[in-house]
C-alpha cells in the first residue's frame, strides 16, 4: 500500500501546481495593487510605487510567482495586508479547528449515511425505506447553517446538553474536544449523510442482486453475515467516491458552521479578509484548503485498493 500512496502523492503534484497558479492569479485580477490596499485611499503614487518595489510587485509576473510559490512551499504565504501578521501563523493557529469540525462532519455523515442507506436497502419498498428517502430528500435541502442555528439554540442554549459555543483542542482535553464538536459536526454532516445514504442504498441493492451474494447464501451463511461480510464491502466502493466529494463540501461548510458555534477557526478570518480584500490571507486559505482536499482524495484513492483488490494490481 505504501508504494501506491507514494505514487498517488506524486500524481497529485501537477494539480497542486495548477491550484497555485489560480491562487496566485487572484491577486492580479484585482483592480489596483496590493500596495493601494495597504496604504488606503489617498496614497500618493510615489508611495504606492515605493511599496510596490519593497513588496516586489514591480517585478515580472513569473518572478513574482516564483517568489510567492517558493515561499508557499515552505509554508510562507507572506503577511496579511491588514494586520501584517504572518499568514502562516494564522493558518497554523486556526486551521486545526476548521479541520476538526470538517472531520467531525465527515464522521457524522458516514455513520448516519451508511447506517441509513443500509437499513433503507434491506427494507426496500417498505415504510422504513420510504421514511428514510423522505429524510434524505429533506437532508439535501436543509442549509447546514440553519441546522447549526437551531441545534445551537435548542440543544446548546435552551437545554444545556452540549456546548453551544467555543472550542477545546484535542491536546488539551480529548473528551472536551469531542464534546464541543458534537453539535457542529451534526449540523455539518446531515446534508452529506443524505448524499451518502442514497449512494449506500443504491450500491447495496445493486450488490445484493449479484451472483456472488447468491453464492454466499448457497454456502449456508446467515443473511446478516452475507450482508455485512459479502455485500457491504463491495457496496462501499461507489460510496467512497461520494465521500471524496463530501470531504471538499465539509471543508467549505466547516468555515460557515464553526462561526455559528463561535469556534476560533479560519472562518471568521477568511470572511474578514474577503471584506478587506486581504489577499495573502485568502490565497493562503485557498492553497491550504486545496492541499487538504487533494490529500484527502489521494487517501481515498488509496483506500479503493482495500475495498477493491482489482485496483491493487493495476
Amino acid at each position, binding site marked *: 500500500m505504501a508504494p501506491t500512496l507514494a505514487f498517488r502523492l506524486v500524481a497529485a503534484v501537477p*494539480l497542486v501546481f495548477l*491550484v497555485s497558479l489560480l491562487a496566485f492569479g487572484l491577486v492580479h485580477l484585482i483592480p489596483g495593487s496590493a500596495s493601494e490596499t495597504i496604504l488606503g485611499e489617498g496614497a500618493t503614487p510615489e508611495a504606492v510605487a515605493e511599496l510596490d518595489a519593497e513588496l516586489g510587485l514591480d517585478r515580472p509576473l513569473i518572478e513574482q510567482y516564483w517568489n510567492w510559490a517558493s515561499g508557499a512551499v515552505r509554508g510562507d504565504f507572506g503577511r496579511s495586508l491588514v494586520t501584517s501578521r504572518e499568514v502562516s501563523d494564522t493558518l497554523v493557529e486556526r486551521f486545526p479547528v476548521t479541520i476538526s469540525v470538517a472531520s467531525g462532519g465527515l464522521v457524522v455523515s458516514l455513520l448516519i449515511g451508511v447506517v441509513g442507506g443500509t437499513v433503507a436497502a434491506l427494507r426496500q419498498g417498505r415504510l422504513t425505506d420510504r421514511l428514510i428517502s423522505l429524510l434524505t430528500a429533506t437532508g439535501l435541502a436543509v442549509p447546514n447553517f*440553519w441546522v447549526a442555528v437551531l441545534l445551537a439554540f435548542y440543544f446548546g442554549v435552551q437545554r444545556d446538553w452540549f456546548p453551544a459555543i467555543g472550542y477545546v483542542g484535542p491536546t488539551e482535553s480529548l473528551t472536551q474536544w469531542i464534546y464541543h464538536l458534537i453539535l457542529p459536526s451534526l449540523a455539518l454532516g446531515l446534508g452529506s449523510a443524505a448524499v451518502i445514504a442514497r449512494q449506500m442504498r443504491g450500491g447495496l441493492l445493486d450488490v445484493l442482486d449479484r451472483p456472488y451474494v447468491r453464492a454466499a447464501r448457497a454456502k449456508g451463511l446467515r443473511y446478516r453475515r452475507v450482508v455485512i461480510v459479502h455485500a457491504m464491502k463491495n457496496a462501499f466502493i461507489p460510496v467512497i467516491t461520494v465521500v471524496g466529494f463530501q470531504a471538499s463540501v465539509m471543508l467549505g461548510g466547516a468555515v460557515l458552521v464553526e462561526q455559528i458555534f463561535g469556534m476560533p477557526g479560519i472562518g471568521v478570518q477568511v470572511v474578514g479578509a474577503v*471584506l478587506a480584500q486581504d489577499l495573502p490571507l485568502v490565497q493562503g486559505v485557498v492553497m491550504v484548503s486545496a492541499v487538504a482536499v487533494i490529500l484527502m482524495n489521494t487517501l481515498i484513492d488509496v483506500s479503493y485498493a482495500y475495498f477493491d483488490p482489482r485496483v491493487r494490481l493495476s
Partner: protein
Amino acid sequence: MAVLRRVVTRPSGTIPLIWLAVVGFCALFPTVVATHDPNAADFASLLEGPSGAHYFGTDELGRDTFSRVVDAARPAALAGLQAVSISLILGLPIGLFVGYAGGWWDRIVMRVVDAIFSLPGLILAFAIVAILGPGLTNAMYSVGFLFSLRVIRLVRGMVLSVREEPFIEAARLSGAPTTTVLGRYLLPNMMGPLIVQTTISFAAVLIIEAALSFLGLGVQQPDATWGSMLRDARSFQRDNPWIPWPPGLAITLTVLAFNTLGDTLRDVLAAGPGGGSKAPRRGVALGLADGATTAARPAVDDTADPDPEALLSVRNLSVIVPTSTGPAPAVRGLDVDLRPGEIVGLVGESGSGKTVSALAVAGLLPRGVTIDPGSRIHFDGQQLVGLTEARMAQVRGTGIGMIFQDPTASLNPALTVGYQLAEPLRIHHGLSRAAATDRSVELLDRVGVANPRERLRDYPHQFSGGMAQRVMIAMALASEPSLIIADEPTTALDVTTQRQVLELLVELCDDLSMAMLFITHDLGVVAEICDRAVVMYAGQAVETGDVHELFATPDHPYSRALLASVPLLDDDEDRLVTIPGRVPGPGEQIVGCRFASRCEQAHDACAAGPVDLVTLAGGDRSSRCLLSAAAVEDGA
C-alpha cells in the same frame, strides 16, 4: 410539451411547481402578498410571536417577518436567475467547443476544471468575492462561475457521446459548417439533461447565496434575504424562538422543490416518449394476473407423496414470478426424485424453468419470486418449503452444495479465495482458522487447483474461468453435501475446460457418493453423465426417464425435436435454432398443451385442455403428450 404534461400529472411534479409558482409570485408582486412594509420598523411590537397582525411575528426592529420573507423571494429569484444564466452563458459554449474540438483544448480546459473542482466551492466563492467585492450581484457572479464548471463537464460529456453518432458524422461529412452541426444536431439532444442540471443548480445556488448572505457577503442591509434574516435571527433567538424558522423553512422548501422537480424531470425524461403512463396499465395488469394464476394452477395429482427412498423428492413444485402482466408461474407442478448418488439432468431451453426450479430447491429464489405453498420439496426427509431463512441456511450449509453458471461472477471480488473457502468450514464445521486453511488446501487440491496453499491468498480475478469454477466446486464440497445442484456449470467455460470440469464433477459424485441435480440445455452432456433426465418445457416436465431409453426412443415431440437439433446446437447462445417459434412466457395463457404451437404433430385436441403427464409402457418413463396417452391406452 408531452414531458411537461407528464411532470405536472405526478404529485412529485405538481407540488414543487405549485410552491415555486408561489415563490415566483412573491418575487414578482411582493407588495400584493406582503401585509406590511418589509422595512418599516415598529418599536411598539418588537420580537413578537406569530399573531393575526403578524403571521410570522416580528423581528428586533418590529418589522413584520412574514412580509420580509415574502420580500426576500425577489433577491433569491434574481440571484438564482443571475447565477444560473451566467453558468449557462459561460459553460455552454466552452463545453460545446471543448467537447467538439477535443485534443489539447479539451485536455487543458478539463485539467483546469478539475483543479478548480478540487477546491471547496464556498472557499472559491470567497476568493472571487474577495476580488469583486461584496454584494449580491458579485456573489452571484462567483457562484455562476462555479456552476459553469458543472455545465462545462456535463455539456462536454454529452458532446463526446453524441459526436460519435452516425447522424452527426453524416452531417459533418456532407459539409455542414461546424456551427450548424453544433446548433442543429447537438443542442436539441442535450436539452433534457441540461434542463435537469439547471433545475438542480437552482437549488444549489440558493443555498450558496443564502450562505454568503448569512456571512454578510451578499445583500447589504436593510434589504432582506433569507440568508441575512437567518443571520440577524441568531442574536434574538432567546427572546423570540420563532425568528429563525420562517427564513430557514423558506430556503429549505424552495431548495426541496427544485431538487424534487429535477428528480421528477430526470425520471420523466429517462422513461422516454410514451412512457410513464402507469395508471391505466396497472388496471389491465391486475385483470390479466388474476386470469393467469387461476388458469395456470397446475393440473397435477396433489395426492402423490414424496418418495421415501429418495434423497430429494420434489412434488408439485410451482414457482411464481413477477411478469409485466402480473405474477405468473414459471414452474408448473414439477415432480423430480433423486436417489442417493444419482445424477439427474434437468434439460430445456431458456425459459423452460429449469434454473428457477433448481434455485427453488436450494431456497435461493430472487426477491419477488415465490414458491407456491402447495409445493413440496423433501430433502433428507425434511420438508423445505416454508422453512425459515435461518433453517434453510443450515440445510444449504450442511446438505446441499451449489455450483453456478458464471464462476467469476459467483466469487466475491473483494475477498480472497481462501477466506471464501474457509468461511463455511469455520461456520458449519467449527474448524479453527488453521484447520480450515488445511482443509481448504485439501479441497483445492482435490478439485485440481495447482499450488493450493499459495492460491488461497489470491483474489477471484486472478483465476481463469475454469480455475474459478474449480474453486466454486471446492466451496460446494466444503459443506460435505449429499446433494450437489449444478446450474449450467460449464456454459461459461471454453470447450476444453468444459470437459475437464464435467469429468471432475462426475468423479467427485462417484467418490463422495453425492447425488447431483444437473441443469443444462446441452443434451450431449446429459447423455454423457446423467442417469436419468427430466425434459422441461415452458415450466413443465414434458418427458422423464432413464437417459439411455430417452435418447434411444424419445417419446414427446419436443424431446424428439430437441434431439434432432443437437448437432446444430449453437454453443454461444442458449437457444435451439431448429425448432421454429419460441417458448411461451410464464404469463401467457395456454389452455392446452404448451408446446402445441411449435409441434409438428399438433391437432385440435391438443389445444382443448390441459395435458397430463402419463406413465409410459415401460413403467419408469412418462411423457406429457396426447399421442403418448393414446398409445398407452391402446397398449393396455
